[in-house]
């Protein structure tokens, strides 16, 4: 049973893109530190960008440009063309708008908790999970264990109770690009 569980987990995973994307994230964190001595923690940078429109805001804009470029190039590589990538993003807005109201409640509740929690805990997945652990920070190692644990417990409980699955279409495995 345990082996089935792990085999499924590996079969569901998209390992090649996970490793390529992960290496890029590590490279970006390295570059931000090597070039201007800053930690690539996005919740911290976002909070700073709200009052300091200098490098933090440029980093945020870069996130959008890089993400958009990767989505467009990825869509064109995977047999689709640019036009269909554009329509895909606009139809997805419509389909998400007509999504169940239940999903909206999860998104709003989740957003409030992530905003409050990442400020209180001074970091998120990037700041603690990647940069902090890479710097061998004990605070970040503990923080990462805590948010992974609470995240897994809540998602697993909600899913087994049918609450999360029904609203988010969790069982439809979509591969990102």
């Amino acid at each position, binding site marked *: 049973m345990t082996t089935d569980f792990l085999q499924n987990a590996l079969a569901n995973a998209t390992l090649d893109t996970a490793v390529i994307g992960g290496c890029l*994230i590590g490279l970006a*964190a390295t570059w931000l530190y090597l070039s201007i001595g800053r930690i690539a923690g996005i919740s911290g940078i*976002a909070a700073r960008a709200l009052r300091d429109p200098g490098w933090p805001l440029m980093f945020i804009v870069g996130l959008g440009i890089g993400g*958009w470029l990767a989505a467009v190039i990825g869509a064109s590589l995977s047999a689709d063309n640019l036009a269909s990538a554009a329509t895909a993003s606009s139809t997805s807005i419509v389909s998400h708008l007509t999504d169940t109201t239940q999903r909206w409640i999860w998104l709003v509740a989740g957003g409030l*908790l992530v905003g409050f929690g990442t400020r209180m805990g001074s970091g998120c997945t990037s700041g603690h999970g990647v940069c902090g652990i890479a710097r061998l920070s004990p605070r970040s190692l503990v923080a990462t264990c805590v948010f992974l644990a609470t*995240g897994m417990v809540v998602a*697993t409980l909600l899913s087994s109770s049918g609450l*999360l699955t029904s609203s988010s279409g969790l069982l439809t495995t979509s591969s990102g690009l």
Partner: protein
Amino acid sequence: MTKLAALVAGIIFGAGLVISGMTNPDKVQAFLTLNNNWDISLIFVMGSALFVASIGYAISNRRVAPLFADDFHAPVNRVIDQPLLAGSALFGVGWALSGFCPGPAIVGAFTLDARALLFLLAYLMGVLIFEQASARKGSAQAAVDG
């Protein structure tokens, strides 16, 4: 120069988030949900990012100063306190409910993903609520680890 360097870092980071699939909240929730549809991709994303960043930080720290700035700004706080634990616990719950953490939500907002936009509005509210609450308590601004 600092702004250009930050822009480049953001572009690489954003591309990495999209390529790795982490901008898809369903995929993140499939990682957090331990059932037969468990998707372990996120471990490999985080693991490879950690591997590269560990080497990158080690090499960078051999220098006296960054390339285009006077000082390295790594956090020095090493005390595991209650706000760290409580905040991280709340973050994990919100992450599970929404499938979003701040980076993917920002990328998703730029591509006009309605889910990301809604999440991000609530996220900003959450940030403001925390800042109002901590200002009212008169406590100093929380330390920023990242």
